[in-house]
């Protein structure tokens, strides 16, 4: 059967067909849908883990125990999971273990554009890179075979344009893969120095064998065309290059680590001018050049952002495509939704002129005007440790006007350890947890605090208040972020304390509820054009030449603006 499938769905389908029994992940764009789709198969146990490190560890446990296991994450998630990655490279696997990592060149939804291929090289783990959804499905199945044959975890690298593109796939049946026996194997599975030293020798042997096999692996293939131009490419870049120069000769690499040296040498000898085209870092190029093969790469292609067919035509064929200039228009960056619960607390923070360390989630958007409520965004969980660091650098007085802001899912991911640090090292920071009952930015996934698993089963939700108290924080307050007076009072009181405190702002994400309340409108006669409502940064409130106006197609009826208008000009229909 043929179907149009998102790359991420095809990965999940590949896992299903490969007989995977355990699939884990922490949500992160552009990888999130992989595990959402995997969870739809009854044959696969799937979970949202609290973070990527735990997700990988669960998958390693499953693999050791004899079940094929897959774990998925975005590129920065692999930083969190890097610790187990480097050592599971030594232990190898029992049943197959495949790690999907989704890079985000161009940073559509990320804080950096690191290139995960370096992780494959650094951890000595083979890495495959599919170029469409069919390959995504096929490569997952191949990855499990390689994993078991070479006793290694296997990485599969996606980029946004593979993960989030749909193309046609042919579906297969689920393979009947039995649970493998579980044996206690201390020499292989207990990585103490004496054992690890021996395993490192194995790792080198395995990578050599794989590099050799890569020369004949079907996913590395030569497509001879016009021999004046030869192009080495993998993943989405192969598609751009085929689009740009369909008649050129190609070496399409399906495996990007280790590289098939003989195949590359043979291809190089057949073409007059050799190019290696890759997004982000010159990972392939540096290796190929180190073998003395003349190849053109980053001399003409950028290391930042995404490439494109137009760019490839221009750089290689020297033909600039005939394109009209882009129009000069004000940009449209993302904003927090109408009705977003974060808007209330940010409005108060801005009013109090607080500094705030921020974190990763929808609430990062609060850094933009008009709210400009947070000062920093580095990585998951960073807000908590950074607030503590600021206090230690500038003293307790500075901390009286500073809060750390973090989401519920992010706090569970990696904010908890920062909070323990504050208690242990006698900090006095105030941490504000924006609890919107979901993982918002990635498209509303459950987490330990929501009371539901990825499969929709009801569980007892993690009790944040009890957890925080157990850490040793005495002052934990729960507020409704739309109760502006209460928020102001609580924030003032808690930041004044010479002890650490946590404020949990609880209100569900505006997109969780399907029913919208009636939109509000502004009474032109009562409105004095003071502009206070505009400071909320709600995308539904517009300033037109004839006065303030609420866009009826956008307003979600949350009522926050009623509270900030001093003249009672904003009303609900019928009131």
């Amino acid at each position, binding site marked *: 059967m043929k179907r149009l499938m998102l790359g991420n769905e095809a990965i999940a389908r590949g896992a299903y067909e490969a007989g995977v029994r355990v699939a884990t992940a922490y949500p992160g764009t552009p990888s999130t849908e992989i595990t959402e789709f995997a969870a739809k198969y009854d044959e696969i146990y799937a979970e949202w883990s609290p973070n990527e490190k735990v997700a990988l560890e669960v998958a390693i446990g499953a693999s050791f125990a004899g079940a094929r296991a897959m774990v998925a994450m975005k590129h920065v998630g692999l930083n969190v999971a890097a610790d187990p990655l480097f050592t599971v490279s030594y232990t190898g696997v029992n049943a197959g273990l495949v790690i999907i990592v989704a890079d985000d060149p161009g940073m*559509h939804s990320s804080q950096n554009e690191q290139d995960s291929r370096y992780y494959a090289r650094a951890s000595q783990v083979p890495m495959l890179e599919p170029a*469409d959804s069919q390959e995504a499905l096929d490569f997952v199945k191949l990855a499990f075979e390689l994993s078991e044959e070479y006793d290694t975890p296997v990485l599969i690298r996606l980029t946004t344009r593979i993960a989030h593109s*749909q193309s046609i796939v042919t579906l297969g049946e689920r393979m009947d893969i039995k649970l493998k026996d579980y044996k206690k194997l201390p020499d292989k599975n207990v990585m103490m120095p004496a054992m690890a030293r021996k395993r490192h020798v194995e790792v080198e042997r395995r990578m050599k064998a794989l590099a050799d096999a890569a020369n004949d692996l079907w996913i590395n293939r030569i497509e001879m065309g016009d021999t004046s131009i030869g192009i080495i490419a993998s993943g989405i870049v192969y598609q751009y290059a085929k689009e740009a120069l369909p008649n050129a000769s190609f070496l399409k690499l399906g495996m990007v680590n280790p590289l098939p040296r003989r195949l590359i040498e043979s291809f190089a000898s057949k073409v007059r001018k050799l190019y290696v085209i890759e997004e982000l870092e010159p990972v392939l190029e540096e290796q190929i050049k180190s073998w003395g093969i003349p190849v053109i790469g980053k001399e003409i292609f950028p290391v930042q952002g995404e490439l494109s067919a137009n760019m490839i035509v221009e750089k290689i064929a020297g033909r600039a495509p005939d394109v009209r200039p882009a129009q000069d*228009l004000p*940009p449209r960056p993302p904003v927090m939704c109408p009705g977003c619960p974060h808007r209330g607390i940010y409005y108060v923070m801005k009013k109090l002129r607080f500094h705030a360390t921020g974190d990763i989630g929808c609430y990062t958007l609060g850094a933009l*005007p*008009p709210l400009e409520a947070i000062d920093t965004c580095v990585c998951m969980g960073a807000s908590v440790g950074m607030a503590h660091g600021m206090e230690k650098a500038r003293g307790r007085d500075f901390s009286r006007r500073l809060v750390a802001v973090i989401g519920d899912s992010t706090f569970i991911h990696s904010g908890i350890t920062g909070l323990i640090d504050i208690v242990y090292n006698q900090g006095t920071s105030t941490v504000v947890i924006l609890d919107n009952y979901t993982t918002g930015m990635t498209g509303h996934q459950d987490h330990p605090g929501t009371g539901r698993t990825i499969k929709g089963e009801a569980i007892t939700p993690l009790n944040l208040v009890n957890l925080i108290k157990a850490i040793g924080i005495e002052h934990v307050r729960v507020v409704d972020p739309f109760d502006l007076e209460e928020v102001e009072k609580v924030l003032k009181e808690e930041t004044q304390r010479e002890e650490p405190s946590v404020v949990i702002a609880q209100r569900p994400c505006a997109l969780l509820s399907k029913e919208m309340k009636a939109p509000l409108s502004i009474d032109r006669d009562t409105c004095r054009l003071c502009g206070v409502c*505009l400071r909320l940064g709600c*995308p539904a409130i*517009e300033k037109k030449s004839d006065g303030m106006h609420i866009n009826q197609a956008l307003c979600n009826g949350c009522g926050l603006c009623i509270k900030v208008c001093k003249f009672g000009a904003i009303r609900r229909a019928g009131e």
Partner: protein
Amino acid sequence: MDTRSILIVGVGGQGTLLASRILGSLFVDLGYDVKISEVHGMAQRGGSVVTHVRYGTKVFSPLVEPGTADILLAFEKMEALRWIHFLKEQGRAIINSQEIEPMSMIMGAYEYPKDLEDRIRNVCPGAVFFDALAVAKELGNIKVANTVLIGVLARFLNVEPLMWEKAIKTAVPPKTIEVNLKAFHRGYNSELS
């Protein structure tokens, strides 16, 4: 057949993904190779969003490049102008007349351009403007504005309405099939300016 390209643009949250899924389902039924590139994550929160749809005998890149789109389907007027240079010389633009102000305008740093239609027609004289939101409101569900626009688009592709109906039935949530089919026909049979 050479690859053809449709670019769907709008503001995050407007439902551009559903429109591309209807097109995807249609082109698969018609036996084409199809690739669709979507935007998820941050831009979906009210940012400028774009979905690329390409179909033909064999499609390589899922992305529509500037100067290569056969059709631009815009859910918002300013977004139409932002992406208009993606159209081919003879490309067609179908534009929902809805206006959504970005935050920079709400803050008063800019005004929503009043001459958008002229600027668009300057580049693309045959541009079609259509108030899909008004039709959707009449049908009692503003979310079906995207299917109304698909109906308008369908007038320019030589495909049987029955095939469109099948694609819509596959792509939309089962409960909304009826209102979406109505929306499609309203767009398909409308008078165009």
